[in-house]
């Protein structure tokens, strides 16, 4: 086994560890085939492959939308039917492989429960009474209603909630009307706090389509939560497995024995919500034991001395008590980091809205990385590729918003993606002004935002709710008008700028024509603009035409792109710090700010301070949630090929706790939270794999919409139990792991 370690080990200290460029990949593919019979002809072109295989097979390179990782897909089409999806080997997000969800995209395309025709509500909200309408009628109806709202309350009363690609096209409607009220759950419910924490520290986030983590070359990888494997982001998980395979040390800090923890050489089953105590103690040890990269700290950071003073009081003994971890583990883990620095990393994480103190947790993680000098180092956080693509627009600029947007609340560091929950609150209160129409495109708000009863109350206040979606989800079935989008396999989107170690361009193009009466979002948005008298924002001809013009402007051959699915931008990769490749920090001090000047300006702690959070009372458990590798939130639960692999979620409960309260593995129980909200029935998974003070559920189950025939009433909805959330005062993200539940046995 030692042999395999040597063989796979890529010396990470050498400067020539290159980005995973297209050429490297091909070399690798040929190598792994062993030069034998299986010398697979590498995919270079869809047309060439079609020709080689003959017959009526077509290959269409496009981009996956089963989650937000945007992998390159090659759809195999036989006789007008998509029969197989494969990863595009040229595309750095997929590298020839697709995850289970990506493979199951066909299940979405051919789901009988799909939204098929535009529909207008005829009965009371939520009673599932709709009439079918033509596109003309439906869009006319929407336009009239929007204009009505605009006339009565002003354009800012129209808001957009979106996630994924469809949102882009409705920006033109909402912003074109003069409203700036646009919000994406990807900020407040997802990675907002992380981005802000790293921006405050490094002047730049660790990127959002793909974390810039050099897992493939790392020697020690620390995961806080970040449950890679279950969190199935394709290329990232590929690299994680590569790291495990070559014997990199994995340290998993997680109250639950996740897949990642099962691959770890050290599992730290931390008491939930105490991560900052561990991090601050690590900082203390790194400084006091001298593990930090002195030269790097000297050259690139500010505030070291202040930091050193501030963290002195955080001792291992104290941290052991606070985090419920053995002191030995606390010390050993950080020494490992120090020993192998800088080829190590604390993975920045992704879903970051945990307990409401999340920016500071992120800051502490960013600081540890800075002290160890991982930013710009092999095995650490690589530097963004150098690319300068000109902006491209064929529409006039949006008018200045009529009134200030409400979506940033009172949070000085709320990001450009807006705060969904503030938009919701405003809709309920009508303060500072009323919000009366929502366009919801590609997000399942009732399941996505905490405190779903508030989402329902806000919807009750609306004059118009338009849903642009592909499935009849809980949120969609509350809408006044349902507009069926074509799935990602039936439409154009993009061009997408993909920034991994190198930069490149990818696209989405239809493998087959839209089924039923579904339409691509670009068309829906464009037609709506026309109906609203916003012709200037409509798409000139077709989206493909626009893509061609954009490609031309960027100097990329569109036909080549359409044939290969991905075109790299040569010379863009510059992942590591060298004499000539120096990092740029866009902070006020132009350095890595261990002490944040921006936080100082806004009167927040400039160095993270630990404050204990509320812990569960006796008989209660903290409700944690996470991912299943075969599902993406609520969007895949009705997909035949994924549904059959995981039909319902369970509630993970420590085995000894289960014994103590007398519930058996597999027994059906309900959960009741601190606000007496009771869950759907759910099976207990009595397991050694979780701490005694918390329970865990996979998010996305418990669909209430009967139109989702497979998913309907399967498993339990975690969101329903999340009736409390703690807002991060710095960026306004919603910490959602602050709810406590009791287990109620079914009579």
């Amino acid at each position, binding site marked *: 086994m030692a042999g395999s370690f040597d063989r796979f080990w890529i010396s990470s200290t050498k400067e020539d560890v290159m980005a995973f460029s297209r050429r490297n990949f091909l070399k690798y593919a040929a190598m792994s085939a062993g030069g034998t019979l299986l010398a697979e002809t590498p995919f270079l072109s869809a047309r060439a492959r079609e020709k080689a295989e003959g017959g009526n097979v077509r290959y269409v390179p496009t981009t996956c939308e089963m989650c937000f990782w945007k992998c390159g897909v090659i759809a195999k089409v036989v006789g007008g039917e998509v029969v197989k999806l494969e990863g595009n080997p040229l595309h750095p997000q997929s590298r020839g492989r697709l995850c289970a969800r990506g493979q199951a995209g066909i299940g979405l395309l051919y789901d009988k429960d799909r939204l098929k025709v535009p529909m207008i509500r005829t009965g009371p909200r939520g009673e599932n009474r709709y009439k079918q309408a033509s596109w003309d009628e439906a869009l006319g109806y929407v336009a009239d209603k929007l204009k009505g709202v605009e006339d009565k309350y002003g354009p800012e009363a129209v808001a957009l909630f979106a996630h994924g690609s469809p949102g882009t096209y409705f920006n033109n409607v909402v912003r074109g009307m003069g409203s700036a009220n646009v919000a994406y759950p990807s900020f407040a419910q997802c990675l907002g706090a992380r981005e802000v924490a790293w921006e405050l520290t490094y002047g730049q986030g660790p990127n959002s389509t793909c974390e810039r983590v050099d897992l493939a070359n790392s020697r020690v990888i620390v995961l806080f939560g970040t449950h890679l494997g279950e969190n199935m982001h394709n290329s990232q998980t590929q690299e994680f497995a590569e790291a495990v395979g070559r014997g990199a040390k994995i340290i998993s800090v997680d109250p639950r024995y996740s897949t990642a923890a099962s691959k770890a050489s050290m599992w730290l089953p931390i008491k939930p919500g105490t991560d900052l105590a561990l991090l601050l103690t690590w900082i203390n040890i790194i400084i006091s034991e001298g593990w930090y990269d002195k030269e790097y700290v000297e050259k690139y950071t500010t505030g070291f001395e202040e930091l050193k003073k501030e963290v002195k009081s955080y001792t291992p003994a104290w941290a052991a008590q606070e985090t419920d971890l053995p002191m030995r583990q606390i010390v050993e883990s950080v020494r490992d980091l120090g020993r192998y620095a800088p080829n190590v990393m604390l993975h920045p994480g992704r879903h970051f809205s945990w307990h409401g103190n999340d920016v500071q947790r992120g800051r502490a993680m960013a600081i540890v990385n800075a002290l160890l000098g991982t930013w710009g180092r092999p095995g650490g956080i690589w530097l963004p590729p150098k690319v300068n693509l000109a902006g491209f627009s064929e529409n006039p600029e949006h008018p200045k918003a009529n009134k200030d947007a409400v979506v940033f609340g009172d949070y000085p560091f709320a990001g450009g993606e807006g705060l969904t929950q503030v938009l919701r609150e405003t809709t309920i209160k009508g303060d500072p002004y009323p919000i009366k129409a929502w366009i919801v495109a590609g997000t399942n708000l009732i399941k996505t935002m905490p405190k779903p009863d508030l989402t329902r109350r806000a919807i009750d206040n609306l004059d118009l709710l338009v849903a642009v979606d592909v499935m009849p989800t809980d949120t969609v079935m509350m809408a006044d008008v349902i507009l069926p989008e074509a799935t990602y396999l039936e439409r154009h989107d993009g061009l997408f700028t993909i920034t991994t170690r190198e930069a490149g361009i990818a696209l989405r193009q239809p493998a087959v024509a839209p089924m039923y009466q579904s339409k691509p979002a670009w068309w829906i948005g464009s037609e709506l603009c026309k109906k609203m008298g916003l012709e200037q924002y409509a798409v000139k001809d077709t989206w493909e035409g626009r893509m061609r013009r954009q490609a031309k402007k960027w100097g990329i051959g569109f036909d080549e792109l359409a044939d290969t699915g991905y075109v790299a931008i040569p010379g863009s990769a510059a992942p590591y710090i060298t004499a000539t490749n120096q990092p740029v920090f866009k902070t006020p001090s132009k350095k890595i700010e261990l002490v944040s000047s921006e936080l100082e300006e806004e009167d927040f702690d400039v160095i993270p301070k630990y404050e204990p959070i509320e812990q569960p009372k006796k008989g209660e458990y903290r409700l944690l949630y996470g991912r299943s590798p*075969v599902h993406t939130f609520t969007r895949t639960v009705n997909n035949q090929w994924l549904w059959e*692999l*995981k039909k319902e979620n369970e509630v993970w409960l420590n085995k000894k706790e289960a014994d103590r309260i007398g519930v058996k593995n597999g027994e059906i129980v309900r959960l009741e939270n601190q606000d007496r909200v009771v869950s759907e029935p759910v099976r207990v998974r009595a*397991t*050694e*794999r979780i701490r005694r003070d918390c329970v865990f559920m996979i998010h996305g189950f418990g669909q209430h919409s009967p139109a989702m025939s497979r998913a309907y009433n399967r498993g339990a909805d975690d969101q329903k139990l999340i009736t409390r959330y703690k807002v991060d005062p710095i960026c306004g993200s919603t910490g959602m792991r602050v709810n406590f539940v009791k287990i109620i046995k079914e009579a």
Partner: protein
Amino acid sequence: MELTITGANAITFPILHIWDWRVAIYLFLGGLTGGLMTMSAVANLRPGKVVPRDQPCCWRIPLIAPILLSLGMFFLFLDLELKSHMFWFYLTFQPLSPMSWGSWLLILIYPPMILYAFAVLPDELKSGMADGFIKRFADRMRPHLLRLARINFVCGILLAIYTGILLSTFVARPLWNSAILPVLFLVSGMSTGTALMIIMARKNEVKLFFTKVDIWLIFTEIMVLLLLFYGHYTSDAVHRLAIMPFFNTSHQFFPYFLSIVFLGIFLPLAIVLKFLEVTGDHSVELTPSGKFLMNASAVLVLLGGLVVRFALVYAGQLSGYGGIM
């Protein structure tokens, strides 16, 4: 251990369930037919006796046997997932596949069975017949009766053993994978065959003869059954585990436990009843109650044979090779 399997097939997980009552009945009827062939041959070959050709057990049983066998094969046919491909059984011979040579064996058994049935047709019956093909053919076969009986004797044994071999060759199913199983099925087949002979027989003397034979067979059957369990019990863990369902009173395994109770009570009971019969005073005609008891014990034996097949077919599918490793 906490085990999660994603992508298991319902047909094999959590337990194998490929074969059901259809196969159990097929195996039962196969064994029964074997028993009938052998025992009707014995009836016709009984040493020192004039062949009691008018005895229903001597001529009706050979007539019934092919029908029962065909019925058994019909149940097997019902079990096939691709019935239209049935003919492939007979377009090939797979020397290592018990099912292949089983299917050929069944075909090869028919001719001696049918010829035998012709040979034993009693004269009274034939005299009532028109002078057709059947009568002439029966007359032609009559001189070969004893030879045919001997062939049937052997074929019956082969058939009954075969039904057990079919199961015993599955290494992957520990409960079946025992050399004792074919012996058990052989004895069980013979005992059920004998039981049916007793029921069909008219003459006291014949009834008593087969009752005596059956006592020995049932006794052997019980011994072999015990040996089967003992053999598994003293074997490795998977085999020991394989017999567990029979000794577990939990809800899940209750039918298996019940089957053991059934066999444990009814087979010995049948022996006792039979023993009482043969030791009784039979200078006079059998009393109706005596006859009833005799037939009742024979029915118990038949039921026992059925239970053995059902229990083993189902329980064998609960057993697997070597756990998950």
